[in-house]
């Protein structure tokens, strides 16, 4: 056992740190979700041009959340953030039916990334909107049930009302507890 891990063990409340990568198309609600996790105001969020990072405490975990802009032009940069990621949160705008195919293609590409063989939490966000598709519909469309190589979960939520967010994070910390 190294000195550092020994010291960690001696501390009464060892910090389990998780690096969380928040991805999804532009306008999916990633930054809103990030701010909700950090209990911050969500009324003046500007479209993300680069990335945002926040550290949040949750159930003995220190969550370091990386929120990366989702415009088509900057998606090639997503791969720069794959390394050392413990869990991927993929956010979908459940009311943006025009782009279900596009978001599915991006997610499929992420599944093929060797550096990103981590559990995936899919947030079917914006369930508060009139035109939102059910999470089951989205799961079928994305063919999530065929995933065999990792733990995954789809969670309906609304970052704006807060519904479903806690449930998603609970699943995430459980998935990581099993892994560690």
């Amino acid at each position, binding site marked *: 056992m190294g000195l550092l891990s020994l010291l960690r063990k001696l501390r009464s409340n060892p910090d389990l740190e998780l690096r969380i990568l928040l991805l999804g198309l532009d306008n999916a609600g990633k930054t809103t979700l990030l701010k909700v996790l950090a209990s911050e105001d969500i009324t003046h969020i500007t479209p993300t041009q680069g990335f945002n990072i926040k550290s949040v405490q949750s159930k003995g975990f220190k969550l370091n959340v990386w929120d990366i802009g989702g415009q088509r032009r900057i998606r090639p940069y997503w791969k720069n953030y794959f390394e050392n990621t413990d869990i991927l949160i993929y956010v979908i705008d459940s009311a943006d039916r025009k782009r279900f195919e596009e978001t599915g293609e991006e997610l499929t590409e992420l599944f093929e990334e060797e550096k990103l063989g981590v559990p995936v939490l899919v947030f079917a966000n914006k*369930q508060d909107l009139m035109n939102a598709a059910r999470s089951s519909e989205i799961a079928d469309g994305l063919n999530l049930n065929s995933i065999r190589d990792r733990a995954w979960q789809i969670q309906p939520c609304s970052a704006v009302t807060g*519904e479903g967010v806690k*449930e998603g994070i609970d699943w995430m910390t*459980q998935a990581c507890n099993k892994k560690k």
Partner: protein
Amino acid sequence: MDDSCCAFSLICHKLLARDLDKRDKSNVENFIIDGKKGETVSRLPGTVNGEQIVIQNCQDSNIYIFDHIATVSIDDCINCNIFLGPIKSSVFIRDCKQCRVAVVCQQFRTRDCFQVDTFLLCGTQPIIESSSRMKFACFSFNYSQLEQQFKSAGLSIFNNNWSNIHDFTPVPDEDVNFSYIPPESTLADFIPLPEGSEFESLQLSSDPNTSLVPQTWGRRRKQSDESCLVVFFNDGSCVERAVRFLHSLKTKNSKCILVQSKEILMEPDDSRRVFETESYVTAVQGGPVIGLELNCDGCVALCQAAVVELMAGTTGLVFVSQSPQAAEKQVEAFYNFADMQMGI
């Protein structure tokens, strides 16, 4: 223990999923405007009431939404005129061409658009991606319920970033993607008012002089080297006061322009940095302040006179630059602060 916990949370998931799916969507068609060709479609105040609107596959049509809205997507439209009342979150325009849009929103986004002219109030930085020949101007419109709808959508008439466009796909050395509509053009030149008795009670007006949103010059070339910073501190009536101040300036000197306006929260430390004094540390804690940049020759003296007149016999606190030299620095400090806040 662990197992029962899991089972419980699983049940919760299911319950929640059902809960979220349970809401009444029987009239969802009222909120989707699809495939209109050469038609005029409108929604009156109270009929949308903060729900989502989807506009798609329309051509040569006029679409008017005179209500506050959760969010809007506009897809695959050609040659349409679209008016959208205050949007709480984002408007996303995709694959549209030759459209004219008037919109009030928190976020403005476009992708794969061509020749869309927008009269805009945007609470954050507007962004465009893979879009070209886009033109922008300040939103200018009014009707009897608009002010209340701003409040319902959580937007401020003073917090407007319409000209501060971020282009995700700029073309090097060329300004082909976006430009500004000349200030002498008005919304009425682009979008016709709807006709019909159902609109009479709304008192629709596209006259810039009666616009609820103060008309800002934005990033167009300024006409004078002299600017002035005026900040109204929040004591519950600062919005009315700022509006009256702008009216009085207009009557004093019609050449005086409002370059930009912001309504923003300041911490005591921010006030020390921006104003370089302790004097406003308490005042900024009353709530969001309204910051205005005015511009014309003799602007500082003009603003000082107008503020003295406005504040005679009242107790509210207003900051006005003391000299053109100081103003230059203060304007930069205030708006740098405001732009940085937006990115956090």
